[in-house]
């Protein structure tokens, strides 16, 4: 099967198993303008350093369900979930269930939400963040590759590396924590569906939050 690498076809080309010359490309190896991942296709691999200096690649978690959660600690929409320990509770539950939860920050240096690794570790301890790792993406490379637009912005990748959900964390755009309990939680629904081996019902929703501070 021929595969011509136009920008729009790049994602499809990357996932075509019949192309022996290509593995799932790491960021930078494919067309530099590619942005956004179609749900139902392979999530692009990436490599980032966490707040403890450990380098992680998405591909190291093959076989596990992975949550990508974009964050900015000063955004009121992020504070909505972290202020009442809702996000931390979901992180704890998911990781206890064997899900890998990666919290990413694509705030550029000098912009809101950007922190050094030390500042991050203090913040993680103070706020009981329970992710598997917090990854610093200050160049915005991974954020741009995934077209992460807001904080929060959620992606769920299954054990086969397929993106199964992207979008909002729930269906009630607001900055009010009182809205959390009554909202439909898309993240929880996606994780439950993947765990049960069922299709995810809502695969693409519009995320809400503050713009990522690239």
């Amino acid at each position, binding site marked *: 099967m021929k595969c011509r690498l136009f920008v729009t076809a790049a994602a499809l080309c990357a996932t075509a198993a019949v192309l022996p010359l290509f593995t799932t490309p790491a960021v930078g190896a494919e067309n530099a303008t590619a*942005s956004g991942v179609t749900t139902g296709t392979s999530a692009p691999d990436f490599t980032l350093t966490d707040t403890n200096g450990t380098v992680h690649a998405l591909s190291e978690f093959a076989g596990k369900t992975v949550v990508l959660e974009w964050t900015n600690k000063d955004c009121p929409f992020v504070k909505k979930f972290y202020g009442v320990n809702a996000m931390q509770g979901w992180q704890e539950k998911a990781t206890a269930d064997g899900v890998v939860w990666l919290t990413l920050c694509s705030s550029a240096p000098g912009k809101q939400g950007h922190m050094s690794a030390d500042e991050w570790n203090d913040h993680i301890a103070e706020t009981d963040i329970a992710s598997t790792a917090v990854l610093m993406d200050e160049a915005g490379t991974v954020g741009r590759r995934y077209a992460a637009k807001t904080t929060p912005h959620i992606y769920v990748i299954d054990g086969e590396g397929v993106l199964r959900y992207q979008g909002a964390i729930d269906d009630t755009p607001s900055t*009010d924590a009182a809205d959390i309990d009554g909202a439909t939680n898309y993240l929880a629904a996606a994780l439950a569906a993947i765990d049960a081996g069922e299709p995810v019902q809502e695969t693409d929703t*519009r995320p809400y939050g503050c713009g*990522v501070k690239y």
Partner: protein
Amino acid sequence: MLVIAAAFAMMATSATSASWQASAQPVIRLGGASGGFGTADAPHTRPSLISRTDAAQRGGAVEFALRLQLDPEWHVYWVNPGDAGLPPKLRWTLPEGVAVSEIDWPVPRYQKDDHGLVTYLYEGDVVLPLTLTLDNGFAGDRVEVVADATWLVCREACLPGRARLTLDLPVVDSTPVEAEANAGLFAAADARRPVSGGTDTVRRVDDPPGRFSLDIHASHLGVLGGGEVAARIMPVDPGLVDESARHPASWSVDGILRITAPRADAAAAPPNARGFVELRRGEHTQLFRFGPQPADPSH
């Protein structure tokens, strides 16, 4: 029944309350361009309810507005905020026999930043019109409506705002007079009010697949003439169009302006194809709305 319900946060500590009678004096702001609006609950904003007339007519309708005076460089969002942000929301406490409509949104300013993030913004002295209607049988010589308002105001950072706002007007049985103090504010809102494109406006969703198009007849487009027109479709419901793409407009030989836009990727067409379209040629601008607009009064 409450309109545009939004959860009202538990902590309404020092909620700003502004009570505007129609004869109120215009605000004189001291402090200059560094910005002087705002309180802890309503940063960078002076919120109020203002009325177009000095009284409300029993059995009639009054146009009034949510006014948000914003510090320079700060903005609030349209009902579809775009990729980020949140629109202002009002939760009403109304007496018997009184209904309030949804906000009659003026056409916002479209912005696409260096990273492709699309937002629809209002800046400066923001006036968002609404309509209040009184039943014929409304008893009393005054009407008071109270709104719990919440909004998000942003520059680089975003800050939530909240206020409890009151509008109190005398009730009369004759046609009320315009409130001169507010005339300029409503005139500014009127300048951004979209008009209907007429019953001959045609919307095509996924026809052909992957496109949305809007046909507006030349008879509605006098100001623009026949030259090259720049267009921006602003959908009320995200998913109708790709909001970061260009929306080119071209004239057909029989005098119809067709504006086309790619549909948004992986999005089902929303049930209602509705929104605004802003058309520009040189310094001329025309603003249209298309599709059903939410404007029903509610008790």
